[in-house]
């Protein structure tokens, strides 16, 4: 390898997103834009009951509907299409039972979308109600209706996976000895991802008897594995290709794999391409959400504000299926005590089944939930002690060299103190805090609040953590990249292009990146946990360095020198005779030498040790940190909360693609703002009420406040160029910062999300009468086939 050291040319500098132009000009094609000759349209029949036995399912009437070509049920899959990770509990189409309103039961393929819908409506499906469970806090009662599958390990069938725990010392005793103890209850509600592109898949049969599936996957390789399994095909006959994706936020996992399996089976049966695209309403009803979480937290401290103990119990309601939520529960348990030092810590999180839709992965993955609880409790502690909330945090927060509550020594890249100090300064915290504490108006008052957080990088102890990348020089001297990780709009493709350009010493305009395709890319695990920059970036860096080595060899040969004598002038190579030779010439020479101008790179994260039984170990390789300050104005007469300003300072290691990183931060704060104030999904008696954006309220451009953001680049030695990550952590502290600001403004705590008008004004939410109409309309169900009497409600 060449030993030339130069300042970074592309990494960390302004760059254009590789996908920007296509998206703003409308050239980018999403699944809903794909049209292929002979394409059929698919539509699902979905459950109208939250929990029921499928007493009768007759698809023959659908086949009589003109234009209908095929209908499938769970019988059309191997083992009824059973799949799921880490808990295998879901079917590609419901088998024997349905467990939530909106669960897919059968899928029809027809010449037109109208015929497919008519076909789905013609299916005879008789559902026999089963006892329902909607209150997660009662899910593990001995007499709770069973929603989850049978377990033979003595655990309650409504528990998903194992219960998650963290233990340090004896928290009960430590709490008993604390002069100050706070005991609080918090609740965070369901959240919808609200990706701008609803679900869509296109499956094409191949002449070899296989299938090619285009889908906006969270992870094309997982989709491929599932498809091979449930279709009974060898994996090499199943190819999954990622088109442009219109956002995901964790939401394009299971629901996309299910739709893919349905479309693929229909394509194999009919021999024709089959496309299935959801309406927004169908997406909201059928898709998984962020879990709702019930939390009890106790914090113990000394009178001088030294935190001593944290006790935490969380019940994570993830609805009818597990999806990724056992992992969510694990991440929640690791972060439940917040970024602080304690003598003792005791955390338990239980992930349970109910008939409230279902939950899966969502940006932040358990941390936004627990951060809302711990960061408000810490604030209350400051209030009780008469301390400034930032001073209290500075006194207790994790620093370089500390040991976390789990027993992990933090040896490097801990920029939290710097985040807090910076956010204090740029938000003019002390002045505003003092000024707003003196208000007397009974109309509107301002408040300012802070929240801090840490967030474990990548998968941690969830499983194997590695990624691969390929790079090659094409005949036109462009450089072609592949990564097994997908870009839903996060900017990771641009990150990879910049890294490859940096390592090769070529202009980024020369570098192009494909979208993942299971036939060309290397399986890199799931695109989750904000792991693309570090995992994929390191793999891309390794691949580019491998190729660079080959090119350096060719250059040295052409310029008749030792590779170490080479320098670069722009893209050109310069040898001892000081004459610049164009990069293309070097490429030509390499080819003449018979060298192969393609390479791949792999990177594996440092080993993680976590003892699930004792709740101790090293849960993640390292952490990112952040502190956000929110300024609000609360209308004391109506509960209306305006967020005026957010200051956000995050330690994300080296910033590789600045606009991308800021974009993630602004976007995360916006999603956190919606989570804080307006986004609410309700499942009264199992029926979702919010089925479009007139009732599910994400922030508009006039709701988003001024955001002042800054990065602390506390380098992480294993990250590419010292990079860590940003995608998820950006939204984690937003809601608790706003909550703390509301408490500062009003003198009252809101301990439930979202902090809507009612909760801010009255201190509690109000329940509108529940209606099945939104679901009926969303699923286009003729009203007569909806259950006429309310299903039996547990307790």
């Amino acid at each position, binding site marked *: 390898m060449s030993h030339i050291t130069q300042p970074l040319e592309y990494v960390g500098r302004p760059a254009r997103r590789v996908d920007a132009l296509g998206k703003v000009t409308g050239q980018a094609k999403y699944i809903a834009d794909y049209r292929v000759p002979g394409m059929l349209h698919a539509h699902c029949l979905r459950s109208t009951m939250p929990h029921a036995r499928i007493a009768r399912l007759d698809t023959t009437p659908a086949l009589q509907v003109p234009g209908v070509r095929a209908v499938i049920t769970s019988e059309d899959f191997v083992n009824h299409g059973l799949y799921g990770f880490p808990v295998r509990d879901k079917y590609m189409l419901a088998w024997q039972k349905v467990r939530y309103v909106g669960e897919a039961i059968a899928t029809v393929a027809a010449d037109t979308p109208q015929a497919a819908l008519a076909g789905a409506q013609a299916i005879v499906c008789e559902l026999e109600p089963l006892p329902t469970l909607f209150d997660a806090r009662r899910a593990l009662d001995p007499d709770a209706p069973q929603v989850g599958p049978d377990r033979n390990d003595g655990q309650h069938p409504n528990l998903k996976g194992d219960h998650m725990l963290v233990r340090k010392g004896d928290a009960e005793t430590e709490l008993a000895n604390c002069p100050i103890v706070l005991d609080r209850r918090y609740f965070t509600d369901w959240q919808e991802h609200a990706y701008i592109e609803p679900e869509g898949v296109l499956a094409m049969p191949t002449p070899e008897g296989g299938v090619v599936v285009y889908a906006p996957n969270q992870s094309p390789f997982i989709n491929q594995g599932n498809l091979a399994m449930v279709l009974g095909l060898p994996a090499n006959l199943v190819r999954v290709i990622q088109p442009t994706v219109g956002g995901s936020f964790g939401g394009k996992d299971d629901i996309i794999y299910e739709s893919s399996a349905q479309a693929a089976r229909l394509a194999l049966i009919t021999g024709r391409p089959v496309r299935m695209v959801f309406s927004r309403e169908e997406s909201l009803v059928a898709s998984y959400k962020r879990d709702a979480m019930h939390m009890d937290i106790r914090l113990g401290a000394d009178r001088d504000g030294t935190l001593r103990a944290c006790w935490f119990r969380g019940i994570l309601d993830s609805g009818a299926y597990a999806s990724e939520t056992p992992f969510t529960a694990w991440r929640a348990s690791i972060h439940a005590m917040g970024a602080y030092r304690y003598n003792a810590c005791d955390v338990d999180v239980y992930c349970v089944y109910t008939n409230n839709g279902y939950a899966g992965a969502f940006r932040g993955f358990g941390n936004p939930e627990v951060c809302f609880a711990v960061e408000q409790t810490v604030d209350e502690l400051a209030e009780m002690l008469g301390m400034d909330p930032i001073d209290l945090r500075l006194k207790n927060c994790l620093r370089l060299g500390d040991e976390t509550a789990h027993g992990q020594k933090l040896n490097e890249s801990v920029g939290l103190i710097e985040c807090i100090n910076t956010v204090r300064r740029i938000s003019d915290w002390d002045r505003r805090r003092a000024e707003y504490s003196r208000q007397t108006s009974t109309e509107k008052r301002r408040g300012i609040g802070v929240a801090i957080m840490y967030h474990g990088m990548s998968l941690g102890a969830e499983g194997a953590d590695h990624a691969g990348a390929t790079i090659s020089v094409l005949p036109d001297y462009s450089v072609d990249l592949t990564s097994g990780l997908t870009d839903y709009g996060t900017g990771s493709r641009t990150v990879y292009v910049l890294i490859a350009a940096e390592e090769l010493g070529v202009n980024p305009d020369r570098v192009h990146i494909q979208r993942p395709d299971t036939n060309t890319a290397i399986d890199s695990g799931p695109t989750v946990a904000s792991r693309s920059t570090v995992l994929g970036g390191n793999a891309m860096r390794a691949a580019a360095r491998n190729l660079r080595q080959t090119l350096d060899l060719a250059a040295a040969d052409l310029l008749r020198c030792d590779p170490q004598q080479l320098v670069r002038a722009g893209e050109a190579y310069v040898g001892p005779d000081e004459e610049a030779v164009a990069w293309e010439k070097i490429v030509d020479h390499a080819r003449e030498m018979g060298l192969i101008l393609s390479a791949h790179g792999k990177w594996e994260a440092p080993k993680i040790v976590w003892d699930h039984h004792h709740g101790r170990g090293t849960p993640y390789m390292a952490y990112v940190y952040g502190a956000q300050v929110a300024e609000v104005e609360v209308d*004391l007469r109506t*509960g209306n909360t305006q967020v005026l300003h957010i200051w956000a300072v995050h330690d994300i290691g080296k910033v590789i693609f600045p606009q991308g990183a800021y974009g993630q931060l602004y976007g995360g704060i916006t999603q956190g703002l919606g989570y804080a104030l307006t986004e609410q999904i309700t499942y009264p008696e199992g029926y979702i009420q919010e089925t479009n954006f007139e009732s599910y309220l994400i922030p508009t451009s006039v709701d988003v406040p001024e955001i002042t953001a800054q990065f602390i680049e506390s380098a992480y030695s294993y990250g590419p160029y010292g990079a860590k990550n940003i995608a998820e952590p950006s939204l984690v502290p937003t809601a608790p910062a706003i909550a703390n600001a509301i408490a500062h403004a009003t003198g009252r705590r809101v301990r439930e999300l979202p902090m809507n*008008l009612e909760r801010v004004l*009255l201190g509690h939410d*109000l329940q509108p009468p529940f209606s099945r109409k939104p679901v009926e309309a969303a699923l286009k169900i003729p009203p007569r086939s909806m259950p006429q009497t309310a299903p039996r409600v547990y307790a």
Partner: protein
Amino acid sequence: MPMFDYVRAKSVAEAVELLADTQCVSRPLAGGTDVLVQVRHTPPTFQRLVDVSRIPEMKIIERQGDEICVGAAVTYTEIIESALLRETATCLVEASRLVGGPAIANAGTLGGNVANGAACADGVPPLVCLDALAHVRNSAGARAVPVADLLSGPHETMLQRGDLITHFTFPVMPDGARSTFIKLGRRNAQAISRLNVAAAGALSSEGRVIFARVVPGSALPRLRRFVEVENMLIGERPSEALFETAGAEASRAMVAVTGRRWSTEYKEIALQGLVARALRQVFTVEN
């Protein structure tokens, strides 16, 4: 998307004739911001939409003596941009600014807002506050109906098949009168009003209330002036206590009609605050 016919009318006469066609059930189409949302979920009850959005007679905004005339096909954007309305109908302009977002303001019309009959409509309380008349035409002739009397309940109006609202008129308010509009939604744009209030008022030279209008929206199944609140203001000197008492009276009057619903616990507090605030804006003389 369901199928139906579309025809664009060039004049009121043509529109009325098309709407009267007994062979083909027709409905007016203005901005389409309600109609097109409705047909997405509910099969249309009509076979044809008669586009009235570009009929010149329905696009006027002008003063006719002591009256202001606003065409039914006037959009919110046109209302916002009208100097005449900014001067004579502040509450209507303020409401228009708070409707939906720019795209909805560019397409949505006042006539559509009234005819749609939603209890949460933002354009209707200002019209009722201004004592506006709706001028309705059909093949049998023309009639003028107070806007408040056109509304019969949530998504119900007294309009019959074949009726077309051509324009609205309202008297110019007394000298020195001011009006305002406050909207309370769950977010700052594209939000359905949880509550709104249109209010207007004027003071005598001695500083006593001689003219008062209070029209809360989203409060009652059938929108109307809160005359009981207006009456208690007349003759009084504006004060914080008066605004709060009026606000409390508005809440009481609301609950008297609606009884205690799921939202009452919230709305009775919020409405008091909004009515008091609206009156403060109308009656507080800036120095």
